[in-house]
């Protein structure tokens, strides 16, 4: 039960709020009107009662002897205002009834009236009673001091409230009906509003439901979407686009792997079949085996690289940072590749900001820089130059590998870090590359909380920039602070 309460829908909550507030407004409004009405009845009755009492008191005080006038005043009321049931009685000083309205009921004896009040004071006592015959009256009394009499006369006036009470009761009943009907209407309208307001969300969720890994084509129709939901819809569409892109790359990747494996395996089979097809000299066998071994080496490298990339994508992948003297590391790399560069007629140099140290995974750093240098040498013609530069910038290590090669056409740049992407397929494959070098470089930068970027100018060479953060957490802080994704 509580589970259901916790999981209630937005539509449910919205309609509950709409209904609740509409009902509350209605209740307050009708309640107020009822209160005003009841109060004005109440005032009017008391005023009338006071007025009547005052008239009789004045009459008795000023002309106590005029029996006819008093009687008329007492009796005549119902004649003048038949709708208002006002009953009066005058008690003589000895307590006996001097005169009273005819029809003064038995169940309103003098004793039920309140003590006489001073009509000039603020505090005039009234008393509401319900008689045995189920009629309601408001009672008031006052003394009229008559000169020469043994004591004061007492004036007792009652006004009947029975009909007004019935009227108010009827009014209250109607209010309840209005309130209940209002509540039902508020719930229904609230529900309609909520459902209507949430319809764009339902449309989005419908699109989501249709989305499959095999079908990433559906898009949320943004036309006629309210602005608040439009952002969600367009974010969702963006996500679909990115997913579609990733899926396309993944399936491309799988078919690329199959292709990359097929070539060396095909070579292996072909060479083996050929070698076994007839008797050969030991030298020929040795030659074939050597060639097979080379193919296997290529396969091993490919498998290693694929495993590396797969591992690098796992969030649990740990790197082992140590403080590296960047100048020394770059010099090591330079020393390793220098003869290869010299053989290609390319000048290789390393320039690191002096005294630069940075916490990095040594093997990974070497691998990244080595890969780039190797690429640089491969794509730079004779008399060219490959420069490795390193400096620190805003707490980050920036490593640039620049070559003076032929450059890479702009259209290839965005995809160069993709696995197996080759700007010039024939050339790269001949060199025995796996097509994973730059993908590995990028994943190494990512593992260090950094980035890899590439710029190229036709005919003037290519520059790859690697940024390394001193810790992944640092980089995360920076990117949230800077609002980068």
């Amino acid at each position, binding site marked *: 039960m509580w589970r259901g309460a916790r999981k209630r829908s937005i539509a449910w909550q919205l309609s509950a709020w709409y209904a609740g507030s509409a009902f509350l407004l209605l209740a307050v409004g009708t309640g107020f009107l009822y209160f005003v009405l009841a109060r004005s009845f109440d005032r009017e009755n008391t005023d009338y009662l006071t007025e009547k009492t005052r008239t009789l008191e004045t009459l008795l005080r000023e002309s106590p002897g005029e029996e006819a006038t008093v009687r008329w005043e007492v009796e005549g009321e119902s004649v003048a205002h038949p709708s208002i049931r006002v009953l009066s009685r005058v008690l003589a000083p000895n307590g006996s009834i001097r005169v009273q309205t005819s029809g003064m009921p038995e169940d309103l004896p003098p004793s039920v009236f309140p003590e006489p009040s001073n009509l000039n004071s603020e505090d005039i006592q009234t008393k509401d009673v319900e008689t045995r015959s189920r009629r309601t009256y408001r009672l008031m009394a006052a003394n009229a001091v008559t000169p020469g009499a043994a004591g004061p006369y007492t004036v007792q006036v009652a006004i009947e409230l029975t009909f007004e009470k019935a009227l108010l009761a009827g009014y209250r009943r109607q209010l309840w009906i209005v309130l209940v009907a209002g509540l039902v209407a508020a719930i229904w309208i609230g529900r309609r509003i909520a459902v209507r307001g949430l319809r764009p969300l339902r449309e989005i969720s419908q699109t989501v439901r249709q989305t499959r890994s095999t079908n990433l084509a559906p898009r949320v129709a943004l036309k006629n979407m309210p602005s608040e939901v439009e952002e969600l819809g367009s974010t969702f569409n963006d996500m679909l686009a990115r997913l579609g892109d990733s899926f396309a790359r993944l399936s491309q990747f799988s078919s690329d792997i199959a292709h990359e494996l097929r070539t060396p395996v095909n070579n292996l089979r072909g060479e083996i079949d050929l070698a076994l097809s007839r008797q050969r000299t030991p030298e020929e066998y040795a030659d074939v085996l050597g060639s097979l071994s080379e193919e296997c080496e290529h396969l*091993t490298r490919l498998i290693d690289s694929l495993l590396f990339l797969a591992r690098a994508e796992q969030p649990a992948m740990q790197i082992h940072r140590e403080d590296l003297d960047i100048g020394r590391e770059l010099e090591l790399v330079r020393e*390793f590749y220098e003869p290869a560069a010299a053989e290609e007629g390319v000048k290789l140099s390393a320039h690191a900001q002096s005294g630069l140290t940075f916490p990095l995974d040594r093997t990974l750093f070497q691998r990244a820089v*080595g890969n780039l240098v*190797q690429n640089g040498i491969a794509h730079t013609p004779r008399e060219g130059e490959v420069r490795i530069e390193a400096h620190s910038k805003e707490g980050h290590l920036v490593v640039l590998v620049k070559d003076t090669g032929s450059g890479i056409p702009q259209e290839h740049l965005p995809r160069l870090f993709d696995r197996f992407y080759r700007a010039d397929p024939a050339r790269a494959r001949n060199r025995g590359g796996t097509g994973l070098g730059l993908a590995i470089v990028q994943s190494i930068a990512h593992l260090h909380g950094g980035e890899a970027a590439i710029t190229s100018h036709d005919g003037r060479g290519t520059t790859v920039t690697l940024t390394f953060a001193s810790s992944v957490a640092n980089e995360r802080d920076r990117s949230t602070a800077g609002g980068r994704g």
Partner: protein
Amino acid sequence: MRLLIVEDEPKTAAYLKRGLSENGFVADLAHDGDQAIGFAETSKYDLIVLDIMLPRRDGWSVLAHLRASRDQTPVICLTARDAVDDRVKGLRAGADDYLTKPFAFSELLARIHTVLRRAPQRAPECIRIVDLELDLAKQRAVRGGRRLELTPKEFLLLSLLARNVGNVLSRTVIAEQVWGMNFDCDTNVVDVHVRRLRSKVDDPFAQKLIRTVRGVGYSLKPEE
């Protein structure tokens, strides 16, 4: 030298045994973890080549059992998994070295030699192969009475080959041992280094010492 090979895959086991025998080792073969422990307890081995993924009792457990019973026989682990954590785990469990499949046989051989040499015997100060003399302390190489002008790295490369005379060293091992490049770089770069070394060590002389073993690597071996 007596080795124990623990490997369940018959083809791998067979070529390891043949290869090691051809390289002058006496090798026994265990096909699972329990058998391996039985062998290790009854005979004394100089080194154990231990596959990690074994039926019934895996390599970690065998290694733990050996070390718990104070058996300090050097162990080289073989595994198809190559997560860095596995490497750390293996070395912490008392393995002396670690190789991931697929590996080149020459590399296993090189590592076996390294591990065995790590034992007490000190590297000699001088190595003499035919008319090549290496003074490891002074970093000097002389051939046929003539001093060879080598860079420090070239000397390191030559002495690595000389210390493993007769054994083939893979390009990966060479890159790792001489330049500290612990990754599988484009090993053609090593070829260039060897070519340079050859031009100084072999080119001026009639007898060639440095040999290329195609598809495997390089070795320093006088002609028979």
